[in-house]
Each structure stands twice: as structure tokens, then as C-alpha cells.
């Protein structure tokens, strides 16, 4: 017996993303239904504890790998003719990526929004702004359920301007509130997802800078389009040799992550993580690892991490460094890559254009 569209919706809105993608083949109306914002909103309210999945981005390669507990999928050539794919993080299951091209003796950066589950893609038109000096990008939305995704573009050769692109208007609009005056010497995004409760973060200075007293963190709040600034945790920088430091989102809080070599024992690297709460920066983890361990990403909301040894497999480890899981199909090799965690969702982009495997 037929249940009728309303009762069908009640059941379908409880299905996980993989099942919904398969059931798009059931009939035409379902294929259209699963892309509607209304169905997404209903589905989103039901998905309280979804398992996270991962995307692997490679340095200097144009393809990505999707990693979930039962599946390993390589997507070849996510963007044709691109040299490299860079990620600016994810929001509500959608990634903001840039594809770098070499064309007509110039480098081009094509920004895209991409949903790894639906494979839908939205290509962002270039900004009409003339300032092209090494911009910083941030990605987010003003609401955890929103499908009006936004990108903020900040010019690092400081002229006090920034613009915001939103999916609903498909246009770049200069921000009303300019960023605070900061000398930005670090002109790349964090390796991690740095969107925390609608606020995107960048570190703007480098440990190599003369007089480094701590990380200077610039942030943009997508809820009210305002910039802000804060300082990272204070610790005795002289005792360590920095490999890198970054900001990250861990369990809905802002975290500062430092990967350092201890000056008195160079065979050991330490992964140090501080999390920001009401009382300030609290040191949460101090994980000691052997120096040729390749760190590849954080997992399970920062309570575990990915990594391995050269010519071994990718593994996930707990805070003591014990191996939890091995991914034998993913070797740790000379091609550097980074594993990004995200919440799979069916959030629609409204373009009905796709990039398939």
C-alpha cells in the first residue's frame, strides 16, 4: 500500500546520507525532494549524533580521497587541470576549496563549494575587487542549520578591506566593519577546520617572527559580519623549536595546536593542544611522539589523531599514542596529505551541478 508523500517524508528524513543518495534512484520525485531546503531542514533536525567522515587533501595533487568507516573512495581529478586542491574547512557538511591552475603563464585560483556526499558543486565567481595580494579566506554560515554558505575574503596586504560572498546572493559585498589593523605575516589558512560556532579563525603571525610572544589570532563572525582579535596561550617558546602551530576546532571550542621539538631531546616531538573556555586557555593534551612520526590530522573531535611512519600505513591513535585503527589502503609516503574531519550532510547548494568519481 502506498503511504503518500507526507508519511514518506516522515520516514525518509531519518535516513543517513548514503541511503538517501542511493534512494534517489527510487523515483523522480524523491530525486528532487532530497535536494530541497525544506527536506534538508527536517533531516538536519533529526540528525543529532551523526558519525563524522573524512576527506584527504594532498599537497600538490588535484584529487581527494573520501574516507569513511566502511568505504574508501578516491575521487580522481576533483578539478580538471588543477595543480592542487586546498581546503578552507567545512561547514554543515560542505567544503570550501580552491583549485590552483596554471593557465596562459599565470596562476588562477578557482574557489568552489563542494558537498562530498551529494557531490554537488558551486563555482564561485571572481571578486570584482582589484586588490589581489595574497588574500586569506574563511568559510561558514550564520547558523548551524543554514544553507546560505558564506566566504569571507581578507586582503593581507593591508588596505583595510574585506568582502563576503554569500550563496543566496551569489555576489561579493564589501564588509561594513573593517578588520582590526594587524600586520599579517602568515598568509595561509590553518590545516584544520577553524570554524567554531559561526566564527572563523586565522593565526596572522609566525613563530619565526622576531619577538614572537604568542599567536595573534584574527577572527570573523559570520553571524554579525564582525572581525575580532585574540591572543593564543602563553608558554615558554624559547624551550622549543616549532615545526608548526595552528588553530583548530575541537569539540565546539577553539583550540591552539603546537607541534614542537623539545630543545633538549630532539628525537621527540610533542603535540600540545590548548582549548579556550570561559576561564582562558587550558592545556588539554601533551602527546609525545617519536620524531619521524608523520602527523596527518586530528580525529574524533581532537581526542584522537591520524598519522604513521614512512612506508607504513595510516593509523589513528589515542592521546597516549596507542594505535586504535589501521588504514592499510592508505600508505604514509612521500606525497604529503592532510585528513579533514567533517559531518556528512545532504545540504543542498542549489546548483544541480555535480562532480562525480
Amino acid at each position: 500500500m502506498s503511504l503518500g508523500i507526507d508519511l514518506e517524508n516522515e520516514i525518509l528524513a531519518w535516513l543517513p546520507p548514503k541511503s538517501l543518495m542511493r534512494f534517489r534512484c527510487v523515483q523522480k520525485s524523491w530525486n528532487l525532494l532530497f535536494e530541497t531546503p525544506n527536506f534538508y531542514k527536517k533531516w538536519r533536525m533529526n540528525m543529532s549524533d551523526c558519525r563524522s567522515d573524512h576527506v584527504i587533501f594532498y599537497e600538490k595533487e588535484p584529487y581527494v580521497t573520501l574516507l569513511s568507516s566502511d568505504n574508501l573512495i578516491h575521487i580522481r581529478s576533483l578539478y580538471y587541470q588543477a595543480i592542487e586542491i586546498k581546503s578552507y574547512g567545512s561547514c554543515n557538511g560542505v567544503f570550501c576549496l580552491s583549485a590552483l591552475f596554471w593557465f596562459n603563464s599565470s596562476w588562477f585560483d578557482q574557489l568552489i563549494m563542494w558537498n562530498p556526499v551529494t557531490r554537488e558543486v558551486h563555482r564561485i565567481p571572481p571578486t570584482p575587487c582589484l586588490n589581489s595580494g595574497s588574500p586569506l579566506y574563511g568559510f561558514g554560515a550564520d547558523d548551524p542549520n543554514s544553507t546560505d554558505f558564506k566566504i569571507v575574503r581578507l586582503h593581507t596586504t593591508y588596505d583595510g578591506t574585506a568582502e563576503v560572498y554569500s550563496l543566496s546572493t551569489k555576489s561579493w559585498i564589501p564588509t561594513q566593519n573593517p578588520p582590526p589593523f594587524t600586520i599579517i605575516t602568515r598568509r595561509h589558512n590553518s590545516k584544520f577546520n577553524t570554524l567554531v560556532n559561526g566564527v572563523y579563525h586565522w593565526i596572522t603571525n609566525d613563530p619565526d617572527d622576531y619577538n614572537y610572544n604568542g599567536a595573534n589570532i584574527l577572527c570573523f563572525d559570520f553571524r554579525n559580519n564582525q572581525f575580532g582579535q585574540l591572543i593564543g596561550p602563553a608558554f615558554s617558546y624559547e624551550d622549543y623549536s616549532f615545526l608548526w602551530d595552528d588553530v583548530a576546532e575541537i569539540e565546539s571550542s577553539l583550540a591552539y595546536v603546537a607541534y614542537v621539538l623539545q630543545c633538549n631531546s630532539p628525537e621527540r616531538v610533542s603535540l600540545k593542544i590548548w582549548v579556550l573556555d570561559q576561564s582562558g586557555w587550558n592545556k588539554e593534551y601533551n602527546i609525545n611522539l617519536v620524531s619521524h612520526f608523520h602527523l596527518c590530522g586530528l580525529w574524533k573531535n581532537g581526542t584522537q589523531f591520524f598519522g604513521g611512519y614512512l612506508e607504513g600505513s595510516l593509523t589513528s591513535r589515542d592521546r597516549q599514542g596507542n594505535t586504535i585503527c589501521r588504514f592499510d589502503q592508505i600508505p604514509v609516503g612521500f606525497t604529503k596529505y592532510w585528513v579533514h574531519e567533517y559531518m556528512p550532510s545532504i545540504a543542498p547548494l542549489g546548483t544541480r551541478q555535480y562532480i562525480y568519481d
Partner: protein
Amino acid sequence: MAQEASSSTSSKTISLKTGDGEIFEIEASAAKQMKTVQRLIDDLGDDITIPLHNVFSKELPKIIEYYKKDITGEITKDFEAEFVKDLNDDEVKVLFLAANYLDANKLFEFLSQNIADRLESKSVEYVRKYFGVENDFTPEEESKLREERAWSFRGIKEDE
């Protein structure tokens, strides 16, 4: 309408008559959770037997069992798992439709989730049969869609 003192309704039972003529008793506080029943009580009074034309003697006792547990606040994940354990997919569907007819929100939501859990790993053909829907794609359209979404078919057993 003046609020009735809870003590006067808590021990009252309501008689429900199924579409196939059987009569079951339910406590008034449990009947309140089924909005259709409550509406009928409001219209017809609580002394007469309430007719439920679209619910039958196979399903109603199960629904009454659920709400009996609900009014004592004892519904747990274990109880819910036990409740549907011996039901096949079609039996759950009938119960789901009955809960919809009775406007029994809590049971309806639980059964929606349970049906979704049962369908999660099923094939496209099984789902079509289950919902009673026709495939309106052409063979070319369908095979193109399947190829594009090939990853979502991995590990799923297709029906014969």
C-alpha cells in the same frame, strides 16, 4: 472548559472498538496521548465506546501496551528495541499507519525512526515495493543515476 481534577480521570478507563468489532480498554491518561481518540472523547463523551474504524485488533493492543509504559515514564531504549524486535517490516508499517491515524505522536516518531533503520541498507527495489511507488525513470536515466552514485550502492545486496 474547566480543568478536570486529575484524580477523577486517573483511574477512569475508556472503551475503544476496533474496525473489526473488538473492544479494548485503555486508561484515560493514556488515551490523552492519542489526539484522535481524545478528540472523539471530547465530541462523544467518555462513557460510550469510542469507534476506531481504521485500527484493527492486531495493532491496537500493541499500541495500548506502548502507552501503558509511557504514562508510567518507563519507556527506555531497551523497551523500544524489545517492542519491535519480533515485528517484520510490513507489520511495523501497519503499526506506523495506525499511530498516524490515532495521532499518537511519540509512537509515530519512534516507528518512523525504526522503519528508517530497517530500510537503511535495503536495495532500491525493496524500497519501491515497501512504499508502493512506481519507478518513473527510463532505463537510461536510471542506469546513469546508478553509475553516478555508485559509491552509495557498495555493500548493498540487490534483490533478484
